[in-house]
């Protein structure tokens, strides 16, 4: 029985693609000048990841090691091209933003990594769960980074969300700091690195707090065990 909870925890937090594995960095940096862009990229990657994992885990028994990588890459490339065409056809505005980086999902090392590390050795269902979790993990990371950069850099959040999600989601677009002068550096290239750096610090801090609490909990049961006997 596969431990789905663990898969989820790994994908979403402890083995997060960006914050723990530190892969998929190029799209992370390049398209996260706003939270909306991050969301779009995350969803596109999620789609490719899910598709690739499903296919690869289905056909894994037929593939010989010598041509393993080319086969995986071809499959991923196909999915990416599909995504590219679909976005181009049906979400042109988003396409203008994500541009080149959709094509680069192909070499997004994280996808090939997942294919090799997980899909090629696990069952279809496990692979689906894993890719979903990893993909969602990536998406929230992208949204997070985009959000931080956007708020600090220009004082808004989810600007242009309607372009991605449709007019009904225009309510997401918030101006966090009205009349903000803008801290330009955060929306420029350096801001991406700096934002990821500080978010990593935040994750580390939270992890550490968690560990401390765990340790405290671990020491408490001793005292609790004694209580019932009294």
């Amino acid at each position, binding site marked *: 029985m596969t431990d789905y909870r663990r898969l989820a925890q790994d994908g979403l937090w402890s083995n997060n693609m960006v914050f723990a594995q530190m892969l998929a960095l190029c799209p992370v940096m390049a398209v996260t000048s706003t939270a909306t862009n991050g969301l779009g990229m995350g969803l596109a990657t999620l789609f490719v990841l899910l598709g690739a994992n499903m296919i690869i885990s289905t056909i894994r028994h037929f593939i010989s090691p010598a041509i393993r990588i080319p086969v995986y890459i071809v499959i991923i490339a196909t999915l990416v091209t599909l995504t590219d065409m679909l976005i181009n056809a049906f979400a042109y505005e988003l396409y203008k933003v994500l541009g080149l980086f959709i094509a680069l999902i192909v070499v997004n090392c994280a996808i090939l990594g997942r294919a090799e590390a997980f899909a090629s050795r696990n069952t279809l269902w496990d692979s689906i769960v894993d890719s979903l979790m990893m993909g969602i993990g990536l998406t929230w990371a992208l949204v997070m980074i985009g959000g931080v950069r956007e708020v600090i850099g220009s004082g808004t959040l989810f600007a242009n969300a309607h372009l991605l999600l449709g007019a009904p989601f225009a309510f997401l677009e918030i101006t966090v700091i009205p009349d903000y*002068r*803008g*801290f*330009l*550096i955060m929306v*420029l290239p*350096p801001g991406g690195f700096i934002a990821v750096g500080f978010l990593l610090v935040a994750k580390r801090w939270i992890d550490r707090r968690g560990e401390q609490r765990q340790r405290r909990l671990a020491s408490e049961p001793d005292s609790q065990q004694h209580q019932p006997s009294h």
Partner: protein
Amino acid sequence: MKAPIHGPHAHSESHLPVMMYQVLLALTPATLYGFWLYGWPAFNLWLVCLSSALVWEAVFLRLFNKPVKTHLFDGSALVTGWLLALCLPPWAPWWIAVTGTFLAVAMLKQIFGGLGQNVFNPAMAARVMLLIAFPVEMTQWVTPAQQMAQRPAFSASLQQSGGQSDLLDSYSGATLLDSVKQRLAMDEPLSEILQGYDDTWLTTLLGSHAGSFGESSALLLMLGGLFLLWRGVITWQAPVGLMLGLVLPALVLNRLYPDAYPGALFHLFTGGAMLAAWFIVTDPVTAPATASGRFIFGLGCGLLAYLIRTFGSYPEGIAFAVMLMNSAVPVIDRYIRPRIYGRSSKGQPLPVQKIKTGEQP
């Protein structure tokens, strides 16, 4: 048992805080001149920079659980704050100063582990980041002549420093580097551009052109630098390297195309060149550790600054050049190192050399 004390049991006189305070002393003449040149707003700026640098230092020392008292007054935060003040536009509002010292002291120094651990020059990196983040405020210059003709009152200066006045509009002017660059870009010949400034290098030496607060007087800065050199706080390699790096390409291009490229002295005495030469590239923390390494470091800073000034988008390239060379310091330190006694420069033991016999004692 008490742990034994290891030798040596004698130490030289020079201690770190002394060095730092000597740097502050060396900066004083240029700063006082800056007060006179730019009036109260400049003084406010200086004050805000220094005090906010100290506050950030204290806050972050606290945050990282370091003894605040022992580190706060080692003078390094003051030097950083002071130098940052000197390279800001003289009438910059207070929040530029506070953000700048935050970037310099907290982000570029304390996060790296505090004094001595930073890899980028805090003052320069903060200046660059401010420039990129607030390009408008960071390129508003005051014309000294106008300021001295009609000094704003202290109360008005408070408003200016508070960022709530449009006083600046009536005093503003471009820096020499900026205006020369822009007019050269519009294909005006250099001789025409510099017509109003026929004694360019003399005035810049004394410093009466618009520019950053402390970069105006090349002469006073040089004086401070020579003082540091005399006290042994700095060595000559980096300053000389920087000046050569600026002067050599300027000489060559000026000789070839006198109407398109300003001469050597122009580059040497405008913008932040002198401040950088004596106080920035000499920052021990962010420079290579060997003498020849420091020369190369200075030379690189000069050449890059010239490149950026002349061919890039920014009128002043010193700060970028320093940051770029800062990032090359580990590489320099790796390849430029003293030859170890008894080893070749590659680190191999030397061949054994027999003493020559037959020589009469």
